[in-house]
Each structure stands twice: as C-alpha cells, then as structure tokens.
C-alpha cells in the first residue's frame, strides 16, 4: 500500500474538489452506492453543492440519511444528520434516486412539440413497454437526468452511481444506441406513405420493403409491427431533442477536466475481472478512468505461521501460554479452544492472502498510470453517516 494508496487518495480528493462529475462504476455488491454516498459527503464537507444520484439505494442507507421516500426528485440531506459526527459540511448534500419511468415521462413532456404528440407518446403501448422493460432505457434516462442536473447549474458536483457492470457499459454507449434506435432512415422506412386501410407502416406494398415487411410480419406478428410503426410515428418529432442531449452527455463523459470515473470493486476474483474489463472499456473509449477503489479488503494478509508452533500453526507455544495465563486456566483445558481459534485464524489469513494477491494483481495490471485505493473490510454493515465517514476516511486519507 503506502505510496500507491496516498496517490490514489490524492486523486480522489482532487476529483471531489475540482471535477463536475464523478461516476462510480462496478459490478453489483461491491459497495458502489455506499462509496458514492461517502464521496458525496466528503464533497459537501469540502464546501461543494453536491448531488448523489443513485440507482437502487438500500433502504436503510436512504433512511439513515433521512430520505424516507427517496424518489425521482432532488432532496437535500438535513445538515443535522451530520451533527454528533464531528463534521460540519460547508457545502450542501443532495440525493435522489433515478426513476426511469418518471424521468422518461418528464422528458417526453419537455420535448413534445404539442400536447397531442405528448399524449400520443405517453399513451402508446410500446412506449409503456420501453420505459418498463427495456434495460437500455434505464441508461438513456440516466443520461437524460444527468443532462438535466448538469445544465440546471444547481450543483457544483454530481456523483453518479451506475447500475451493475454490464449496464454501466451500456450507459457509456447509451448516446450511440439512442441515435441508432432513433435512426431517421429506419423511422422513415416504417413511416412510408401507406395505402389501403391498414395502419401506418403495415402497407409497404412496393419495393424491397414489402418482402421484408411481410417476413417480419410472419416472424413477429403484424400487430406488433403496427404498434412499432405507431410508436415511431409518435416519437418522430422528439428525435432532435433526444439526439442533442445524448451528444452533450457523451462529450461531458469524455471531458477530463470535468469528469472522473471511479471503478469500484472488491478483491474477489469475479469483481476484479470485471474491474479490469471496465478499465479497458474506459481506456478504449478514451474516457477519464484509471482510478480504482477496492472495498472490503482483508485485514489479516501477510501474517506468518508461528516460529515456535507446529506446522501451519499461527498461534505458537508462547502465544498459547499467554492465552492460558491471561484466562487463568490450565493450558490443557484450553487446548481445543485454542486449536479452533488457531484454525479459524489460519483460514482468515488464507482468505485475506487471496485478497492481497488480487489487489497486487490489479496494481500490476493497471501499471503506474492508474491509482488504486484500498478500503479495508469494516466489521459492521454501513448504513449511517458514521459508517460513511469511516469509509470516507479510508478513501480520502485523514
């Protein structure tokens, strides 16, 4: 640790002081939301107006911040929550949970040129489908919300918690996907002038479109195609707004002076693999990455077996004698207890050595250009301001 740890902490401090956007990415269950929250708290302490946008906060975490009903609206965390923890934020901390459906509806209301278009889109069954089921729609909406918050000028810093790994990549690509999804040529294909009694799109009677359309109908059903065509017709007018916003967000995500990505992981093999993968994804996209937080790292790595013990024993003769004396008992009577204690510790060390090896593996993988901050496993679950501050202490150094 040592030097590398301090460099990483310095980079993290710089990010909360100077950047406009910090994006936390990583696989599920690695403490991403908790990390995002502790980054938010630190930024508020540093005097910034900061909002933490989370995807799926654990209820207790939200509750402990006084956010009983964390929803799609921005809520300020009561500064009184920090009282008793020895900190006094000079700035202000806000939080919100991203509600895909609500955000989508808001966007439609905002960009619809008239009430009729708005109602047609909101009432379309495909639209309902999209906002509820399409996993990518979550990413479009994260990007939309980001645009709103950023351009509102209300905050100095946005800390964005993202969905687990695979989706986080979709999120980065959401702008491109959106553009493809709304590709004009596709839409015009569906919206060619229709003949006969059928609805829009269902009547491409001429040209190559006919065959394709008939085949599509055969494979996917005509009703379905009709719905799609209607959806495209309804959303046609919303295209330009969507596209502009997506491009704006994409630029922001690439801007090294404004944005910093933090890859959050644990020392477990699966999480490390995904962290490496994500690191490469960021590098390929030329996005400001190279900063890692490794949560839940083991604390007993590197303990050696006792010099004066049996093979593989961590508690040597002197340790055992000390225990017996300390407890005021006969060593023989304590034999099985000490044996279990020793065995348990041996396993703890083995598990934590695995952790330490994977952290070292990560350091050598990312090389000298990247920074890795290690946060040791805490003994209790984190669900209040005190716990978040403890984590912050490790993330930013004292």
């Amino acid at each position, binding site marked *: 640790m040592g030097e590398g740890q301090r460099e990483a902490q310095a980079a993290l401090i710089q990010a909360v002081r100077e950047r406009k956007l910090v994006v936390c990415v990583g696989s599920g269950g690695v403490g991403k939301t908790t990390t995002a929250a502790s980054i938010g708290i630190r930024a508020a302490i540093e005097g910034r107006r900061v909002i933490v946008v989370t995807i*799926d906060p*654990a*209820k207790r975490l939200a509750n402990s911040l006084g956010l009983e009903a964390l929803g799609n609206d921005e809520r300020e965390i009561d500064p009184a929550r920090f009282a008793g923890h020895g900190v006094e934020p000079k700035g202000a901390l806000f939080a919100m949970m991203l509600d895909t459906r609500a955000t989508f509806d808001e966007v439609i209301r905002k960009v619809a040129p008239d009430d009729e278009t708005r109602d047609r889109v909101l009432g379309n069954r495909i639209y309902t489908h999209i906002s509820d089921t399409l996993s990518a729609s979550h990413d479009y909406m994260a990007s939309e919300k980001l645009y709103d918050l950023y351009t509102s000028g209300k905050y100095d810093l946005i800390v964005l918690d993202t969905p687990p790994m695979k989706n986080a990549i979709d999120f980065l690509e959401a702008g491109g996907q959106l553009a493809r999804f709304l590709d004009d040529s596709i839409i015009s294909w569906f919206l060619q002038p229709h003949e006969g009694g059928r609805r829009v799109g269902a009547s491409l009677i001429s040209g190559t479109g006919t065959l*394709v359309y008939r*085949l599509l109908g055969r494979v996917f*059903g005509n009703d*379905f195609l009709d719905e799609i065509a209607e959806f495209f017709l309804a959303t046609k007018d919303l295209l330009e707004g969507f596209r502009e916003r997506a491009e704006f967000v994409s630029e922001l995500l690439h801007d090294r002076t404004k944005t910093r990505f933090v890859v959050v992981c644990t020392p477990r093999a699966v*999480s490390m693999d995904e962290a490496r993968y994500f690191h490469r994804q960021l590098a390929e996209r030329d996005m400001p990455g190279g900063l890692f937080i490794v949560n839940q790292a083991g604390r007993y790595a590197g303990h050696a077996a006792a010099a004066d013990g049996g093979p593989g024993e961590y508690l040597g003769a002197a340790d055992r004698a000390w225990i017996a004396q300390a407890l005021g008992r006969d060593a023989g009577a304590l034999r099985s207890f000490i044996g279990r*204690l020793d*065995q348990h510790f041996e396993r703890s060390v083995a598990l934590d050595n695995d952790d330490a090896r994977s952290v070292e593996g990560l350091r050598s993988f990312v090389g000298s250009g990247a920074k890795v901050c290690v946060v040791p496993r805490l003994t209790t679950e984190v669900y209040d301001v005190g716990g978040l501050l403890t984590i912050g202490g490790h993330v930013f150094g004292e």
Partner: protein
Amino acid sequence: MSEAPGSAIRFGNRRVFFLSGKGGTGKTAISVGVARALARRGKRVLIVEIDAPRPNLPNYFGGQIDAQPRKLGKRIDGCNIDFYSALRAYVESVVPVKRIVGLILKNRVVKIFLTATPGARELVLMSRIWEFSWDPRWDHIIVDLPASGHAMALMRTPSLAKKTFARGPLRKRADEVMDRFRDPAVAGLFFCALPGEMPINETLETREQLVELGMPSVGGVFLNQYPDESFSEEEQGLLDDLAAMDEAPRAVDAAVEAAIETRRKQVIASHGLDRLLDAFGDGYVGRLPVLPGTHSQVADAISLIITEWL
C-alpha cells in the same frame, strides 16, 4: 435429512435451474457446482450464460465458450447465448426455409429494428432457453442469469408480451415459454444470496416480485459464504475476555479479532437465515460455507456439498 434448518435445498426433479443473484454472490460458482454435482450423478448438463460480455465459465473450465453449446467437462456442456444467435434460432423455428432465414437476419432494417425493439431481445433469449429445455441432449439446463436487474426483465418479458400481443408468433412463443417455465416440475429459480442484511432484503424483495410474476416457480435460495459456527457459547465468553486484555501478542490479538468478527457476522447471518426460512420454508434454503481457493476449487467444494442434497 435431519439436520439443522437451512442445511439443504430439495431440488425435486427439475430440468431447468435458473440461478439469480447480484455480482459477488458466487452465482457462477454455484451454477458450476450444481452442474458438477448433477454430472457426478450421471446427468448430462448444459450451463447457459446469457449475453455475457465476458463469460465466466472459462474461469472454471478453461478454453472459450460461444453461442453454440460445447463440451466443457465430463457430461457438462456450456454456452453463452447472445441475441443474434438466439434470434437466428427463433427465426429458424418460425421460418423453415433456410434462404429466407438468411435474408431476414442479414437485413439491416431488421437488425436495427430488433436490437432496439423493446422486449424483443429478452423474449428471444428466453425462447432460446425454452428450446434447450426440450433438447434431448441434456437432462438439465443450468441458467446463470445476468447479475443485475436485467434478470428480472428477462423473467418479466413473457408475461408482458402476453399483455401486449393479442396474437401472432411472438405471442405464441411467449405463451409457450410461460407455460413451460411456470411449472415447478420443470423449472425453478434459485437465488444466490450473501448473509448480510441488505442482500437478504433484496433477495426477499425479488422473491416477492417473482411470486407475483408466477414464472418461473421459486425453487429456493443458496445462502453463500455463511460463516462457520465454530465457537461454543462458553468459548465466545473466552474470546470476549481475551479481547478485553491489553498487550496481547500480535498473533493472539489478530486471531481473537478475526474470531470476534466472524461471530458478529454469524449473528447477522443467523438472523438472515431465519428470515429466509420464514419466506422460503425449510427445505428450500441451503447454506454454503466460506471457501478459499481458485474459481474451480470453490466450485468443486460447492459441488461436493450439493451432491449430498440431490
């Protein structure tokens, strides 16, 4: 089995095991463990990953996997189905003429249309698993579901498709998928959870959503990395005594701290176990211990435990 509550899952004779859980819950290790356990009992097993940008199975078996099932080990095959391979399989099942299948799949409009069409992706992937479930080459299909909320989106798609499409081939397939996977004799969804309070909350919430969906039936829950119960009450008292003492040798200090940390986790874990038992019922909750080692070693250790449950 006359052991403590939560010590085994009764699997029944299901063909299809859906495994769901957040990242880090050991979902893939458990998937491989279940597969190896079944293979040990002479069953032929296919493990399916879904659209994984970086499939996990090679970590356990070496080599590579792709969309077509290939042999990974004795009686174990594996694949990573992606949208296009699943789409090809779906179109082939609806259009018997090869040339037309090619025409449909190559068409740019079709491609973009389907990539972006809500629910199409999920339904087509579910349809592929449904096809596997009829394939006589395997006795069991183990589906290692994606780690995120995407898993629930997959499960929700057939029932949503039923609402959206009054008729047509997609509707028909959605019905077929639902009918097959809602049958507890055929398929079940198994959760992989860690014993912390928040992971248990999430598991219980997802379970309720699943019950509401009715598909697939709830199979049970693997409670992974359950801390050992290695200290008696009297010994726990001794640990407290030792922890209160100053100037312990370094090894004693660390060993006592580690033991007390484990005990603290045990208290949380046993509370979590009780909550899972309340919701799932005894016989549907199976504890797995904390296991060190490589991917494959962990999966092997898990498979030995699960073999006892079969």
